[in-house]
């Protein structure tokens, strides 16, 4: 151990070793996110590229999001009718389904679809551009790659995610209504009436805000992974895997944090059952 006398920072304790890489990634990601957010406000504003991304993310995801929403609403209605049937509370099925959808399921499932469809595409595309030197080429042509590649994607995700969540909400509610009223013979009036009294606008806006934040962050993670890809086709594959896995974990982590913060303020009681 005699050669360890040179000056320098003390080596971190052994138990920190497995945490080193995650902390490093988190630091790099924060730096990347900071630079990207700064690039949003720096001209040129690439409206054309934003439109291309919106078309791909929002319009292109409508069918998948709608289909996911339909089945989610249907299965949620089945389960709720069964569970509430145990204590004769079927009249609350509509409101329960819609509150679960608006506050949690719609934003989360929509963002999962976004990670699978958009996050993987962004990581692959940026990763390929990195390893084939196309990002270097942008830089040598005096074009900021963050401004050109990352900004349109993250801004588009922040806009698309709430729009798709709204679509998910509508179609899922339609699916739930179909199952509850047409299959399980619940009264349509009760189903809708309870929704009207128990679901508040803030339940929906809360979910939309959550979708926007999560969509923004998971797309940022995907762009970061692609942007930092190295080592050819294999490197791009690794970047895509990390983008999707990291995105999925981030969805649930941010969901918890966002919900905890939004519920920490003074709570007003719900709309109540009265007339």
């Amino acid at each position, binding site marked *: 151990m005699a050669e360890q006398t040179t000056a320098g920072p003390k080596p971190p304790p052994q138990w920190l070793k497995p945490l080193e890489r995650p902390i490093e990634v988190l630091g790099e990601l924060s730096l990347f996110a900071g630079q990207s957010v700064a690039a949003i406000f720096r001209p040129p504003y690439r409206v054309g590229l934003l439109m291309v991304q919106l078309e791909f993310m929002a319009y292109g995801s409508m069918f998948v999001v709608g289909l996911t929403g339909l089945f989610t609403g249907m299965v949620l209605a089945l389960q709720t009718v069964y569970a509430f049937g145990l204590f004769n509370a079927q009249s609350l099925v509509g409101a329960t389904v819609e509150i679960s959808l608006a506050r949690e399921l719609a934003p989360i499932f929509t963002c999962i679809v976004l990670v699978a469809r958009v996050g993987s595409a962004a990581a692959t595309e940026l990763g390929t551009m990195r390893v084939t030197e*196309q990002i270097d080429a942008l830089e*040598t042509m005096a074009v900021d790659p963050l401004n050109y590649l990352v900004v349109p994607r993250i801004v588009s995700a922040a806009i698309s995610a709430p729009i798709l969540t709204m679509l998910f909400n509508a179609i899922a509610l339609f699916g739930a209504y179909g199952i509850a009223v047409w299959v399980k013979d619940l009264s349509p009036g009760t189903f809708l009436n309870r929704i009207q009294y128990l679901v508040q606008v803030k339940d929906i806006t809360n979910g939309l805000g959550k979708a926007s934040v999560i969509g923004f962050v998971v797309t940022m993670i995907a762009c970061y992974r692609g942007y930092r890809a190295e080592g050819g086709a294999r490197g791009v594959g690794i970047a895509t895997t990390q983008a999707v896995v990291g995105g999925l974990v981030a969805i649930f982590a941010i969901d918890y944090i966002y919900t905890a913060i939004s519920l920490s303020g003074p709570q007003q009681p719900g709309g109540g059952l009265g007339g």
Partner: protein
Amino acid sequence: MSPPPLAPPLIDVQDIYKSFNGFPVLKGVNLKIPEGTTTVILGGSGSGKTVLIKHIMGLFKPDRGQVIVDGENVSAMSRQELAVFRQRMGMVFQGAALFDSMTVADNVAFPLREHNPGLSEAEIQEKVKEKLAVVDLHGVEQKFPAELSGGMRKRVGLARAIVREPKIVLYDEPTTGLDPLTTESVDEMIIHARERLTVTSVVISHDVGSAFHIADRIAMLNEGRVVEEGTPVEVRNTKEPFTRQFLATWFGRT
């Protein structure tokens, strides 16, 4: 026979050092590149050629020393200053680095659309056609990069690099991985680009034959230092042992 007097250097690399993760790559590189010449930087794999050229472009910052290009210190520039500075440069990448989502015409037009918003679409198309003609490409405007051969892609890469008429064009291993005939045509392209556009070219390569074909001056890079520098004739007759060994691999056979 005495060498011609040198013009003042357009690119002046002054004693730069660069390490990656504690591993030294450049160990005091000095190089002067006169205006209007083609300089080839020769060196083996891992000699630091690419790192050196990326310093000239301002993609890397040296640990020590500085790079002066056209009277300006590239190593001390901010992001914004670099963006302005790079508009005077063009770079041709080893793999051409064309944008595969765009047609050939859109690739070549890209720098114009980014930096010359005053140009009309007709003017842009005219310039694109003109630059593609410089590199002897005709009728490929609407093709995508994936539909072109390797040599054609490199030529499109050059057309894109010169479309805004830069003072300096940098080439990263332009002939690596090409067959002899395509190598020949890429060499011709570099010579033509200099003759028709009077640009200063810097080529990094390990292709000795190609280097002696196109170069006005040759610099030999070994283990992070320039070990020999001069006209092709001077370098051919050098006493420097590494350069002799490197050149023998080519001249020894012919």
